[in-house]
Structure formats: C-alpha cells, structure tokens
C-alpha cells in the first residue's frame, strides 16, 4: 500500500517570504510524485510532477520541488510568495501495484499568505 503524509495542515507566511510545504510518502514500488493546487471553489491544478531524471523539478508560478528517495520526501518550495498563492496544496503519489497506478493524495496543506 502507498500513503502520503503532508506534515503541516496549515502554513502561515508573510508576503515575499520563502515557504516550504512538506510531503513524505511511503510506497514499496517506484513512484511518480505530484503537487497540485486548489483555489477556493475550484478543481485541482497541477503545479509540477516528478517522473524520473533530475531530482529538482520546476513547476508553474515559481514553485519547485525536490525528490529525495532516501528520505521518501517531495517537499515543495517557493523563494518568495504572493498573496495570490493562498490556496490548498496537495501532494500525490502514483505507484505501480500489479501494473496499475492508483493515485493517492495527502490531506492537504493550507498556505495562507499575509500582507
């Protein structure tokens, strides 16, 4: 079985400050990793994903994430946040089990950017 743990349910930060949203996963097989953002009353939008290759992944809106296999982590970072980054962020893992890849999402981290 695979699982995703988002270590912080809420992260408050001031505008223009850096932020890191933490994600750890467990899986017995090789995985694909994703970060999605959900704005109020909207569906999820992909920020970035790791499939293979370079462990540092760059996404949209200035976000990046680093895949760390030994620590089974995929933390999301942004060097300088804006008010408009206030949203819910979900980490997800998709691992192969008997040939199928069923996505598993974390419970989400609410990023709150203060002026």
């Amino acid at each position: 079985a695979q699982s995703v743990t988002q270590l912080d349910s809420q992260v408050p930060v001031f505008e223009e400050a850096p932020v890191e949203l933490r994600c750890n996963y467990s899986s017995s097989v090789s995985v694909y990793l994703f970060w999605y953002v959900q704005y109020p009353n909207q569906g999820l939008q992909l920020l970035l994903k790791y499939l293979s290759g370079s462990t540092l992944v760059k996404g949209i809106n200035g976000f990046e994430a680093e895949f760390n296999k030994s620590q089974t982590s995929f933390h999301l970072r942004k060097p300088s946040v804006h008010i408009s980054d206030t949203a819910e962020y979900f980490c997800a893992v998709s691992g192969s089990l008997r040939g199928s890849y069923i996505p598993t999402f974390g419970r989400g981290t609410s990023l709150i950017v203060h002026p």
Partner: protein
Amino acid sequence: DAGVTQSPTHLIKTRGQQVTLRCSPKSGHDTVSWYQQALGQGPQFIFQYYEEEERQRGNFPDRFSGHQFPNYSSELNVNALLLGDSALYLCASSLSWTGGETQYFGPGTRLLVL
C-alpha cells in the same frame, strides 16, 4: 478549448436516494477518473474509465458505479445514499493513464446528503 466540465455544480439529496453526476473530459482526452473529496481531506480515488470500461477501482463499495460513453464523457452513479457520501466529487481527465500523465480536474459537484 473547454477544460473538464462537470454537472451539476451542486446537488442536495436525502438518504437512500440515488444520484448521477456527469463529466465531460478535456478535448482529446480518453481517460476519466473520479474522486471523492470530503471536507478538509484530499481527493480519494473512486475509479477510472478508459475505452468505456472500468480499468481501476479504489476502495469504494459497489454502490458507486460509473459509465463512459463513446465520446469519452462519463457518469458517476451512487445508489442508496448515506450521510457520509456528502462531499465534493471531482472528475479528472488525461490522455491515457500509465501513472505519470497530468490529470486535468473539473470544478467538481458538491453533493449534500440530508
């Protein structure tokens, strides 16, 4: 290009009733996945349809069923509704699915069961 659309946006039902939710995938996408997102939780995978067949299923009872039409649109049916079925139901589409494709999500249908 219209993205993923879902209907209706909101729905109120009573326990024991049945409900049908609809999804139109992004143009060109052939795979549709359905998720249940309870309040304050992440999305939970219900099932996935490809070529009009259910290809993968999460840990949901048989009360949850679906269908995919030749134009790739899809329906989610829930029978014998329980209070615990109250949630945001999300549809996501992708161009096939081997685990790493980007899924495009619709805005969801919010279901309230009284």
